[in-house]
């Protein structure tokens, strides 16, 4: 397997109130936009699309920091990403549409 240098990118996600005050609960989706998994992530790795003091039942769209090589899988238009942590339900790697990612 070719090893390529990874770069930081920001991927769309859903952000909920975490447990500790310095973290969020982040929910990411798979390529079909179905829920892939949940992970607790420190706040500085997450950006909220709207500033909000999250209550237990709140969720807002946001972006979570991932790592990617920006290499598209042949024919699929999908890009592999490495999440900042392993999700509770699945692993740490998934392929997502390129337009889910931004540089900032």
């Amino acid at each position, binding site marked *: 397997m070719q090893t390529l240098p990874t770069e930081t990118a920001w991927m769309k996600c859903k952000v*909920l*109130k975490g447990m500790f005050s310095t973290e969020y609960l982040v929910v990411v989706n798979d390529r079909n936009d179905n829920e892939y998994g949940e992970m*607790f*992530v420190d706040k500085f790795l997450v950006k909220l699309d709207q500033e909000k003091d999250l209550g*237990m039942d709140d969720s807002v769209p946001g972006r979570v920091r991932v790592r990617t090589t920006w290499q598209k*899988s042949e024919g699929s238009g999908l890009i592999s990403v490495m999440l900042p942590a392993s999700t509770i*339900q699945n692993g740490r790697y998934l392929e997502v549409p390129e337009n889910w990612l931004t540089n900032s």
Partner: protein
Amino acid sequence: MAVLSNTEIIRALDEGRLVIEPRPEPGPGHDGTPFDSISVDLRLAPEIYVPIDGMNIAFDAGKKIGVGKTLRTVYKTDTIPHGQTKALEPCEFILGRTMETIKLPVVENCLAARIEGRSSLARQGLIVHFTAPTIHTDFSGQITLEMINLGKIPIILTPGMGICQLIVETVVGTPTQARVSQFQNQRTPAG
């Protein structure tokens, strides 16, 4: 893989291959020095999470649906006030965190780490993690500790006390994400 000596841990901090914020320095919480021969002590943060009694639910470990959301509801947050302590009773389980934020960036000669308890506290019956002590390359954040007192007498916890040790290891190669589609439909190791 090799374990870093204290001098190599300091070199890694200087080079940015390991980030610990605030950087460990001798002072309160660190008796003399935070460094042992092959580890560095991390301190207990004031914020803890305590399981709520009497919850009439169960985690389905097989399905894992909504586990993250549920976890937030079966604990209550608490803070050990400055200058005060908390007695961890026999068989009491709480979640805690390190004061320090740890970062293991994906760079050339990158590093991984693991959390271990401190032997002095272990003799008193304190466990600070049950499983998964590994801190992966690319990790960024405070470390969550699963703490339980397996002794027969309470253990007094003070924010800022040395609570665990970080052991840092070299990584062979540079981690990258798995190219999932490359292995899709693979039947044998040969393809």
